[in-house]
């Protein structure tokens, strides 16, 4: 199965940077989908099959933790790895993300290599 990836971030700049990094890897062999918040991301998941989600935490409408909680509550998406990519770096926030079901955590600012390493470990 082609490994489609969903990028969820309210910043078009970050979505563009992450999409470029993903296109540079051989790990992602499918399509790259984008969403600007958790609600849009759930809509993408209802229509497409994805192998991995990269998600911001602080977003309008539905934040990354709420989105992750919704994902984990749905049996179709329970096993899809979700990596949180965020400026939020407190231990409490990391713990909250892990408890909600995050598979990985990358702090912004990030390097392309950090993203590639995380992808390689999950796909």
């Amino acid at each position, binding site marked *: 199965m082609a490994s489609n990836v969903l990028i969820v971030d309210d910043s078009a*700049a970050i979505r563009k940077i992450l999409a470029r990094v993903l296109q540079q890897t051989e790990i992602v062999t499918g399509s790259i989908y984008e969403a600007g918040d958790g609600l849009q991301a759930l809509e993408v998941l209802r229509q497409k099959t994805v192998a991995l989600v990269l998600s911001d935490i*602080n977003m309008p409408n539905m934040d990354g933790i709420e989105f992750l909680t919704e994902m984990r509550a749905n049996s179709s998406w329970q096993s899809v790895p979700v990596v949180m990519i965020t400026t939020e770096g407190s231990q409490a926030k990391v713990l909250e993300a892990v408890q909600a079901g995050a598979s990985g955590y990358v702090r912004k600012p*990030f390097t392309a290599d950090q993203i590639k390493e995380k992808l390689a470990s999950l796909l």
Partner: protein
Amino acid sequence: MGVIESETVVELIRESTRTLFETMMDAIPEPLPVYRISTVRDSHESVFCLIGFSGEMMGSGSLHCSGACARQLASALLMGEYLEVDAEVLDAVAEVTNMIIGNFKTAVEERHGVIGISTPTVIYGEQYAARNFGASDWIVVPFRYHDTEFDLRVSLQPDKARTRRTEQLLNHREALSS
């Protein structure tokens, strides 16, 4: 919750800025002398991006720069060339602000408790003014970046009303239990 020292704000903003530029941009900006101000008044083409703080501490963090500097920041972050300040440039400036202020917030949280931040608001244009209402000025931390300059502005105070409410609640509970 205590007041955060100006020197600490400056140190954390410079560190956060350096980390971002080392990791995702093309050059390290040079720190310039710090000053204080209570208003932003600009008659030239410029960008002002604001993020609010709430929680144990309240206030705002912002980035202010010329249109030329905004285009340079976007070019470095997105690895493209921008000849005008368009939506992509404003989005890039918002994300630069978000990463600097977000990491500053995380560092402050370690010493002063949980702080929430808003999503960024970006203002672009000429002939505008912004004012910091409340007791404190903005601490302005400027940088030289290539042949342009930008600055980060931070105002951060303990939320006294929140502290008072917490004290009242604790006193009320104590009175009930005694």
